[in-house]
């Protein structure tokens, strides 16, 4: 719960800090990229703060690479 509040605070702080820049790029496609990445981050942040463990991206890397390495 505490972490969820902190997560929301973080997102709020980010938007607040970027306010001026966001106004400057209003109606530009740059904002799509911005909110795309931010949205992804937000979703991950919420999942993380709700107590679920996110899988580490390294898991897939090692799953793919381990058989290859064992050849050598």
């Amino acid at each position: 719960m505490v972490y969820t509040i902190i997560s929301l605070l973080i997102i709020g702080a980010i938007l607040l800090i970027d306010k001026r820049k966001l106004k400057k790029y209003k109606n530009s496609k740059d904002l799509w990229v911005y909110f795309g990445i931010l949205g992804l981050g937000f979703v991950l942040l919420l999942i993380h703060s709700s107590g679920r463990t996110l899988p580490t991206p390294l898991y897939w890397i090692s799953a793919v690479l381990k058989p290859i390495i064992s050849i050598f």
Partner: protein
Amino acid sequence: MKLTRKDLIPVCALMLILTGCWNNREIEDIGIAVAMGIDKVDNQYVVTVQLVNPSSISARTGDSSRAPIVTYQEKGKTIFDAIRRLTKTAPRKTFYPHLKMLVISEKLAREGFANSLDLLARDPEFRSDFYVVVAKNHRADHVLNVLVPVEKIAAQNMYSKLKTSADVFAPTLALTFGDLLHDLTSPGKQPVITGIQLTGEPLEGEKMENLQRVNPKVRLKYTNIAVFKVDKLKGWLNEKESKGYNYIENNVKSTIVTVPCFTDKKENLSIELIDSDTKLKTNSMNSHPEMSVSVKTDANIAEVGCSIDLTKQETINKIEKLVEKDINGKIRSAIKTAQQKYKLDFLGFGEVVHRSEPKYWKRVKKDWDKEFVNIPIKSKVRVHIHKLGKRSNSYINELKE
């Protein structure tokens, strides 16, 4: 109200104050542990921790009616278990970075102490610069419970005493925990640890009266060196062997050598060694393994108890020879003890072999102690006397008969 970037500043400041207190401990809320004793009773570790009592030590608010130190004791299955149990009795959370001494009881040392000490190497709160000693013939807590004069904190007293005696006398060994770990894991050297002993009745030492006497009933005294096979105590060296050990290890910074006077056998001469340098060498390990110890020392004449003519080079040469013989005797006895009595290489010859003859070492590494017993070791001592103190000949030469 419109939020602007400036509004973030007070919010952040507030968050810093509200959240940031995880590692925060106020200095007056920690119990500063200065010494720790480990004992073993019924398969459980007994940990004794000596804490300082700051308010009775501090110069300004010094309250001499209270004891400067206090010890707490707790049993546990592991050291960590015991330490955490201590919170039940100790008023404050104990704080270990200022640990000066670790005392291992002889009983635990004989059974093997290595399994108990991982915490001290792993936990970031423990620095590895505290000294390790073995309580000879005593329980560890008896040693820690003694109140000592001069230096108010007993552990500090033990620490500086060991340091001084190792520096200027040499039968003791100031061994830090880091060194001990190294010795424990190095295949070429068995560890040794200095012993500590109580004189007098242990329980008397806990009383404040012990501090109020000019000649305290109970004192702490360092004895000689204990020899280990890995982590199990095998026996004690006597003073001669201990000194010999330190000569070989190149631990001698300054010490004295007392030799009988050649004009009057009943009287003695004292020579102060001011600098000593030892080299261990290997010779042709593959065909005829042989090792050698060579010691070079500089010395001054400290005390003359008989009438001899120090202005003659001949006399000086004679004294040098005597000293060389004495030191060599100590070294020989240490080597003899190692090879014949304990059959353990606590002198570190294995490390020398490892460095200079890696191939040979690979072959013998597994049974080095067995191999070591049969290797002949030569020793050579060279003493050079420089100064006579502030006198040339002693006034003893002119004494009226």
